């Protein structure tokens, strides 16, 4: 194992976040607060409770998931795209470091950063509404698995993307809509039957549902199905990553 190599990549990525502390931390916190003000007061005055939980509290897990997913994808995709853009990948590819170690460095840093942001949002939420966490262990597990899966997904986007537009289009056009339509801010049971069926094809539904269950013990689908879904998604990302390094796709001639 090239431990100093993993450390070097990890530290390098954490330094980037420190240099851009505003984008990394302050902006997600501000946008979350805005969600609370808009959703909490505008919608919350019409929907007071969902399944016995106040609307403000109900949306907290969804908000954390929204941030966690978008930030994981952004951090990891940018982390590997940037050296490709500047041409500095030559150094990583010529170093005595295995593909697994490269992924651990980049994805590990993205996971760490998005977990920090997720926890900061959780704390921020506590300022606005009452939060109750029934299963802390499960909560952390969902947090970790989601951050890991989406960081890996972001890493893949960072390797696939040819330019900055493409880099931003996936989080913007796919991740955010899926999170919004995945029951983050409402219970699926509130939808007409047809749209309920459609929603079950949205993988984010399972993550949000499981995550919310770890808080309030209410869910749209069973926890085990949630866990199974995220596991499947994770396996798909791992397989694609493995294939990329095996073939050198977009990295090596």
């Amino acid at each position: 194992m090239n431990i100093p190599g993993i450390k070097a990549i990890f530290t390098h990525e954490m330094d980037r976040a420190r240099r851009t502390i505003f984008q990394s931390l302050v902006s997600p916190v501000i946008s979350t607060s805005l969600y609370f003000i808009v959703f909490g007061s505008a919608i919350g005055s019409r929907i007071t409770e969902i399944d016995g939980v106040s609307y403000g509290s109900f949306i907290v897990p969804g908000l954390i998931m929204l941030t966690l997913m978008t930030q994981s994808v952004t951090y990891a995709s940018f982390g590997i795209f940037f050296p490709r853009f500047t041409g500095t990948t030559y150094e990583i590819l010529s170093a005595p470091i295995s593909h697994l170690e490269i992924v651990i460095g980049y994805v590990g840093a993205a996971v760490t950063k998005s977990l920090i942001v997720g926890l900061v949002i959780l704390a921020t939420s506590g300022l606005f509404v009452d939060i109750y966490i029934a299963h802390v262990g499960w909560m952390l597990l969902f947090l970790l698995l989601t951050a890991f899966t989406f960081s890996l997904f972001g890493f893949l986007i960072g390797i696939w993307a040819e330019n900055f537009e493409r880099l931003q289009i996936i989080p913007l056009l796919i991740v955010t809509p899926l999170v919004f339509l995945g029951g983050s801010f409402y219970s699926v049971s509130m939808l007409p039957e047809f749209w309920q069926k459609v929603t079950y094809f949205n993988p984010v539904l399972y993550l949000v549902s499981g995550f919310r269950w770890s808080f309030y013990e209410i869910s749209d689908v069973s926890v085990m199905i949630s866990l199974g879904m995220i596991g499947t998604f994770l396996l798909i990302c791992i397989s694609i990553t493995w294939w990329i390094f095996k073939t050198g796709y977009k990295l090596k001639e």
Partner: protein
Amino acid sequence: MPSFISIENLSKVYQNGHIALNGVDLDIEEGELIALLGPNGAGKTTLISIICGLVRPSSGSVTVDGHDIIRDYRHTRKLIGLVPQELPIEPFESVFKTVNFSRGLFGKTPNPKYIDQLLSDLSLTDKKYSQIKALSGGMKRRLLIAKALSHEPRILFLDEPTAGVDVNLRKETWDLIHRLRESGVTIILTTHYIEEAEEMADRVAVINNGSIIVVERKTELMQKMGKKQMFLELQQPMTQIPEELGDYDLYTQEDGTILVYNYETTRKRTGITSLLKDLSSMQIGFRDLRTEQSSLEDIFIDLVDERVEVLKHAESKYASTG
């Protein structure tokens, strides 16, 4: 015992079908400075990219320190530092951090003292905490050298270290490479400047169209392939070479005031004595005499031309049979 770096029958065909390397064999010994000399597109960057792990070979093998570069990549890559042809940098990083990063990436534990020394050797101490984007072109090149040396490698690849660099900076870079060389590092540099190979290398490998045409100690290369010319400044201009001198390879310059004699140093007899005798018997007087040796440049052009001739020949043969 295989050589320190041993390249065997190495070929590379890019995905678009372009043959960038065609059966390259080359052995490099520890401590030497070898120049890969060839025109643009010859395959120099491809060759060193394969050894460093940036490009996959299509066939053939390379060992470094007796280890295969693909199977034992961890062993071989630790020994190698690479300074690429372009100047890829992360603009917002600081000089110290980026060198420290390189060291870690290559599996070495931090050693700030060593890095400070490196920065001082490369005259970058003032810039230790500067952002990289604020450095001049010459400083960026030195920074990339510092990054390449950060893990104390025994081999240094320099891909066109002075391409597009002004004269002063070129001299400075040459001095630097001479100093690195004295520290015992094996250096492989690529260049399309003949004078650079001539100035620096112990050995020169001439590469063209993906093949190594010749590998020779620089001095031997010049001796072997070298032609000399003798210039005679005549007392009376010569309008035409006299028939009696038809055996000599002669021509005139500057309206016949200078007589030039081409001869090869490899011959046992250069023919100078008999030429001078013949001249004096014909009462052709001269005021001054000097000789000039052809440079690597002439040799190089000869070699490449020869290759082109061979190819043309092969092609016309092919055309006539097909």
